[in-house]
């Protein structure tokens, strides 16, 4: 409980990033005209951990993602990525370089596959930059040199490994747009993983999935964390996903960080309960309701 309480002081900047920190967000603020979508949010995502970002609708979760992945330029703040190669300041990088050089992959709230291209092609396109280098920026490829063909075979092998993981090997040659919804969600995650990211940002991956599918999603995400050496940043409404697999949770409300900590700590945090269920007026609530509140959040 004490950890949760100390983290609940929103303006606290994380102390000098610990060695295991992968991404530190410091004083992130994003204004659209007069609207403050994110107000001075700071948090740390650690290596080999799943960090959940939750909050009611309009809390600014997706805006945080858009700032991280270069779709928005933050008004104020520092986004420091402790990349194995060298530390990088994300807010100063061009959009596509955040995926290419910094290795941050993302998925979208509304699925964004390449629907007319086949499932396999979707995964091969994700390996574009490596294949471009191997094809000598198309020069060797046009001439049909062996060096490029080897690289393409490797790319297909890697795609196949991911297709195995998401159970889509039999449908590999079909157009991605013809897949059922749940399979499209999994394919989008596999595609993001094909760029070999150090950090994977998932924007509501469980939205629209049935309980069985979201159970499979949990396993996929945990295997990514444990086997691929990739940290995961997760926006999710589905509490059964967030609470079960997150190692650390950040709670946003109206663009401010209102709590941070382990799933258990966050679940019991009065600020979080207030944000989700409205103002808590202890005296008026029957005891039975008060007991129920943590369960609603679980």
């Amino acid at each position: 409980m004490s950890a949760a309480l100390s983290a609940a002081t929103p303006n606290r900047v994380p102390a000098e990033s610990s060695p295991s920190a992968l991404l530190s967000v410091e004083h992130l603020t994003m204004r659209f005209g007069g609207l403050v979508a994110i107000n001075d949010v700071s948090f740390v995502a650690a290596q080999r951990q799943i960090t959940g970002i939750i909050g009611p609708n309009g809390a600014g979760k997706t805006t945080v993602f858009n700032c991280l992945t270069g779709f928005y330029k933050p008004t104020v703040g520092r986004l420091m990525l402790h990349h194995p190669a060298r530390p990088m300041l994300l807010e100063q990088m061009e959009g596509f370089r955040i995926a290419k050089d910094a290795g941050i992959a993302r998925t979208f709230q509304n699925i964004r596959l390449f629907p007319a291209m086949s499932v396999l092609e979707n995964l091969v396109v994700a390996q574009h930059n490596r294949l471009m280098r191997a094809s000598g920026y198309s020069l060797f490829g046009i001439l049909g040199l062996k060096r490029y063909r080897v690289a393409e075979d490797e790319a297909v092998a890697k795609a196949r490994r991911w297709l195995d993981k998401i159970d889509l090997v039999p449908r590999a040659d079909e157009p991605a747009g013809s897949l059922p919804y749940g399979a499209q969600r999994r394919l989008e995650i596999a595609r993001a993983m094909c760029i070999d990211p150090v950090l994977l940002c998932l924007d509501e991956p469980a939205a629209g999935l049935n309980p069985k599918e979201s159970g499979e999603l949990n396993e996929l995400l945990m295997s990514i964390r444990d086997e691929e050496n990739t940290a995961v940043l997760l926006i999710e409404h589905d509490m059964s996903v967030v609470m079960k697999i997150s190692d650390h949770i950040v709670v946003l409300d109206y663009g401010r960080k209102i709590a941070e900590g382990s799933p258990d700590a966050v679940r019991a945090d009065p600020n979080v309960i207030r944000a989700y269920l409205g103002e808590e007026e202890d005296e008026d609530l029957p005891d039975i309701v008060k007991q129920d509140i943590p369960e609603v959040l679980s």
Partner: protein
Amino acid sequence: MAGVVATIAREPKSLAGRIAKDMIISGIIVFLLGSQLIGIETIDDPKGLRFITRYDDVLAAALAVALGRAGLQMLRAGMAKPVLIGSLAFAVAVIGSTLIGGERDLSLLPFDNKIVDWVFGLTAVVFAIRAAVVHGRGSASAHRRGAVMDKISAQTQRFSPYAAGLMILLAVLLPVLFPERRIVDMGILVLTYCMLGWGLNVVVGLAGLLDLGFVAFYAVGAYSYALFAHYFDWSFWACLPLAGAMSAFFGLVLGFPVLRLRGDYLAIVTLGFGEMIRVILINWWWFTGGPDGIRDIPRPSFLGLPFERESPDGSATFHSVVSPILDSMFGIELEFAPLHRIVYLYYIILVLSMVVCVFTLRLRRLPIGRAWEALREDETACRALGINPRNTKLTAFAIGAMIGGFGGAFFATRQGFISPESFSFIESAVILAIVVLGGLGSQLGVVLSSTLLIGLPEVFRELADFRMIAFGAGMVLIMIWRPRGLLAHRDPTVLLHGKAGLKRSNRAMASEGSG
């Protein structure tokens, strides 16, 4: 009077009676209107204005409308099949007899005006199409028809290696089989547009960037060659790569400012660029010759040998060198003929277009080609995967422009004279129509549609302006029946399960109706 009106207003009982009544009433209306509008023609005579009467045309109009009403009534009564057969037979008979007749009037119809014969024939064709649509609607839903068409284009795609082989063989043998200037010239024209179509296909079909100013790059290529030849006396073969490079450079320059635009906005800006290049060519008169153009552009030579009867300085020509060799080796006498140069041009464009075809086919299977297609599908997702949208788009612009430039250089050397008039917007529109009609992204579709759009209008040149009407009608029909083009079918560029995978992919597309 009231009795007559009441008789006319009464609905006849039988179908035949209804049709007959409809025919008579509409025939009378057309006769009354037409006797004023069609029946009297004003002639400007040296003695002044006078009138002549054209009763036969009025009768023809009344008859046509009456027949048309009969057809419509029958269609409405659900008799699509007889109308289809009848109108098809009528169309074939009328158009056939008119075509066979040539200059003589062998037509089955009693009019001495050939255009009227054609109008009747083509109207019957339109009727047949309409009857076919009604008939088709009765037997198969539009969705099913779409699925069938998709299956057909998937099959075409499967057999395209054989079809392409056959076409290439035909193309190689064409000047041997038909050694006529008219036919070889037409072959050159069709192949030029094939090549331009494949070039534009990279930009529009693969990268999904709607470019309405493609003719600008065609013009840059043509003028690069013409100006290099004019000012420096460089030969065609030296200038061809230069023309491609110049066009590619212009592709980059014009592509850069429009990177952020998509769809309609991009189309409008590229349209403007196409016009700008033309206007610059007109106004920069001291350099480009302005509206007078550039004349005496050198013809391509064969290993340095010109195609002339005698060269002015007495040096060797193609004929003077090749004919003794043929004579000594095969005992064939080779007479000098102007056709040799045309045939040579034909083979140049054949080789050029084949190179472009293989080049673009390979590009599509490379990472850059896949990135273009991904960019067409979803630019945001591309950026999230670390694909540089700027460079990818600019490569598409540059490569499309380069191919346009090659086409332009060839155009300049074939014509021997170019002026800005050759590079008007209609050229862009025709090339775009070829790509869209053939099916975005389909190589074979471009061949098919450039044969249809360039070849057929040349064949029917004697129909003058009517062929443009037919052109427009054809485009409208394609847009109704096959909005994504004749051969709109996409095969994956890389397969996990080989042929079985291809089959599954085709089935999935057909069932989805998005093939």
